[in-house]
């Protein structure tokens, strides 16, 4: 099992297609961030603006988890095992922020 001679290493050439895709993902992430900046200084503060930010953030999160963390290409069982528990976070957010809007009236 354990042997002490150096194993033969074959270095493969760069996968240009894959690398181009990674840079494209980075470009999308930066573009969305720029759009967020433009929205931050053009739209008035309010629920619609917050909603837009949340949508754009979720898109960015999707690209990071799906492409960079490679989750999109993993086995479906792993994909859902990671994603499903995040539903609780959504519920937690809605419940607590709703709670906060009630606390202010006390």
């Amino acid at each position: 099992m354990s042997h002490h001679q150096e194993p033969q290493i074959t270095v493969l050439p760069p996968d240009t297609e894959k690398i181009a895709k990674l840079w494209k993902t980075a470009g999308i992430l930066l573009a969305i961030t720029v759009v967020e900046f433009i929205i931050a200084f053009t739209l008035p503060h309010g629920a619609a603006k917050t909603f837009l930010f949340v949508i754009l953030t979720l898109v960015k999160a999707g690209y990071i988890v799906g492409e960079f963390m490679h989750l999109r290409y993993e086995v479906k069982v792993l994909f859902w095992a990671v994603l499903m528990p995040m539903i609780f976070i959504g519920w937690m957010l809605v419940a607590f922020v709703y709670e906060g809007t009630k606390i202010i009236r006390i």
Partner: protein
Amino acid sequence: MSQTTAAVSHGKSVWDGGTSPMGVSYGKLMMWFFLMSDAFTFSGLLITYGLVRSSNPAYTGAVKDFVFSPNYWPIPEKVFEAVPFLHGYSLPLVFVGIMTFVLIMSSVTMVLAVEAGHRMDQKAVEKWMLWTILGGMTFLGCQAWEWTHFIVGTESGTILNQVVNGQLVPRTVATHGAVLVENQYGPPAFADFFFFITGFHGFHVFTGVLFNFLIFYNTVTGVYARRGHYEMVEKVGLYWHFVDLVWVFVFTFFYLV
């Protein structure tokens, strides 16, 4: 036994033993589950921010007339508008935008290191890991500057009220910057959340840089070349991308909304 991700044939037999049903090695699966628990921790912090913010009065006037007051929650773009070497200019959210750019770029160099690892290209892994470490350290440096500016405050400061004989009276001396009990920007909780949320994230970046350095060191000394695979780069890569992911949420919910 190979530890690299093996293709699993789908069907009932997947759960009958002999293969890994999730299609990833034990280490990678545990990293995913750790990151899920970490996601819940960060969600706890950010959602509590949402709770406290929504239970505090919001500023209702025009953005250009905004002044700091402990009576309502501040508009983030009015708090974070300083950039190093450009003292006196109002550049809202520019510096935090630069920090976001740095972190996204270091995420790209990390995934390029993972790609190089798949090809057993030791020199390329070294190169991209170095860029990733540099990006992480740049981010930490930016955060150190931002914290310093936040704690020291602006020249004008804010006159806070204090209770004297049961009545609120303005203090004679303006309060500058922020500590946990009071700050010039808004309610005390605003600075507390700034310290806890960006601090907890910054600590993750810090440990991420340490892990990245460990990976870089092991790559240079040929540990992974001898092992025959670079899966450790992938595992630490997952952690590093998660740190980037959390920043995306912190950026939105703390700085933009």
